[in-house]
């Protein structure tokens, strides 16, 4: 920040007044007072500008904070496991994501969606303890997860029945509505920030 008088003649008068200091102290004091007043006015204007900028930054930060909180809340409301939907989308995934010894178990899980080790063992003809080990290995690979309430392993592959088709359609509509409301909310916040700036 540079403090300078708003009148370009002032520099010269200041220099002249300095030169005339020994001769006319009063004139010198008057000129000095004028210069200081001008500098103070300039400083005040500059501080007002800074204050306004700070207010704008505060309003923007507030909008960002609200947006982040809002998006975090939405994320927290999503069903657990949504991130892993699509872990196995095709036969190629079966081949690429699981080692050979786990593929039969994984095929059963793709068919059943959720199952205990005993249920898988019945389908594969292997022992329950071996299937339990295989399910845990698949869990460590991030392909399966465990349902907290039942202890069943779950794979996120969706079988769409007619009722689920309707549910899915509703979910899609809700999602679209949610996205619209999010967009609206963010637009409102941006407008608030713009208003605050003005």
């Amino acid at each position, binding site marked *: 920040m540079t403090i300078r008088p708003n009148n370009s003649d002032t520099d010269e008068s200041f220099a002249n007044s300095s030169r005339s200091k020994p001769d006319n102290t009063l004139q010198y004091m008057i000129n000095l007072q004028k210069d200081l007043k001008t500098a103070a006015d300039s400083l005040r204007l500059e501080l007002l500008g800074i204050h306004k900028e700070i207010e704008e930054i505060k309003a923007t930060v507030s909008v960002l904070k609200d947006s982040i909180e809002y998006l975090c809340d939405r994320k927290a409301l999503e069903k657990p496991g949504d991130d892993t939907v*699509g872990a*196995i*989308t*095709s*036969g*190629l995934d*079966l*081949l*690429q994501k699981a080692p*050979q010894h786990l*593929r039969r178990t994984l*095929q059963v899980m*793709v*068919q059943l969606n959720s199952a205990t080790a005993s249920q898988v063992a019945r389908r594969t003809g292997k022992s329950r303890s071996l299937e339990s080990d295989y399910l845990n290995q698949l869990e460590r690979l991030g392909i399966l997860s465990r349902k907290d309430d039942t202890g069943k392993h779950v794979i996120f*592959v*969706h*079988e*769409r*029945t*007619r009722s689920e088709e309707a549910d899915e359609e509703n979910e899609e509509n809700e999602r679209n509505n949610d996205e619209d409301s999010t967009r609206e909310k963010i637009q409102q916040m941006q407008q608030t920030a713009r208003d605050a700036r003005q």
Partner: protein
Amino acid sequence: MKIISFHSYKGGTGKTHLSANLATILARKGFKTAILDLDFRGPNLQTLCGIESEVTINDLLFDPDLTGQDILVSFEDQYKIPLFAAFASTDFRKMGDIVRADKKQRQRSLKRILRLRDELSENGFDYTIIDTSPGVQMESIDGLVISDATCLVLKADDFDISGTKSMVTQLYSLLDSKNYVVLNRVVAETCPPEEGVWSSADLKLVEKFEKTIKDEMRMDVITSIPCFCEVAREGSRNIFSLKHPEHPFSQYIEKLGNALLKGL
């Protein structure tokens, strides 16, 4: 139940023809055999079998209420052998649905293919033969994933060795099945080979070619089937070995079947 699939890098190698003829040979041996047409992008089995099926595998993949029983067509009465087939749709719209399938639909398709496999097994089928789409189409890989043996069909006179090698290296190395090469329509110097038996000069050439394939692909050539004019003349109008069970071509298919069953 054991599953044998026929696959290739390029189209037009004779997968459907070989699949249908092998299924027929196995059924003639008394094995309850199903042939599944998973070549959704170029379905040809309906033409070969001379029928038009209203409910197809395409429908099964999209409709959760359908089961294997709804799509299987029996040839027991017609040919007096335990042969069944499930066809891919030739309806352009349904073919488009397969091409446009999104991630979720692909998941459902895989699940329904696995369910169909189990259903066939529970219904006492001994063998299922799968005819796949060429290349690395997702639905082909679904078929390969459930197979116990895979036959990579190469047409000896025209195949892309680098493309095929690349597919073998990247895809076949992941498969759990026993993988073989079938050389189809091998053109001999003396055409046609008498009674399907190679002359000594031709045999040397065929063996040399088989060795090249083995060295390049690191896969065994299970059989080299000569190009028979009679087979070419009949084309895709019928299942050749049903009509001509004594023809050398049918004998080759029988040998192929025996070799595959031995390896399973």
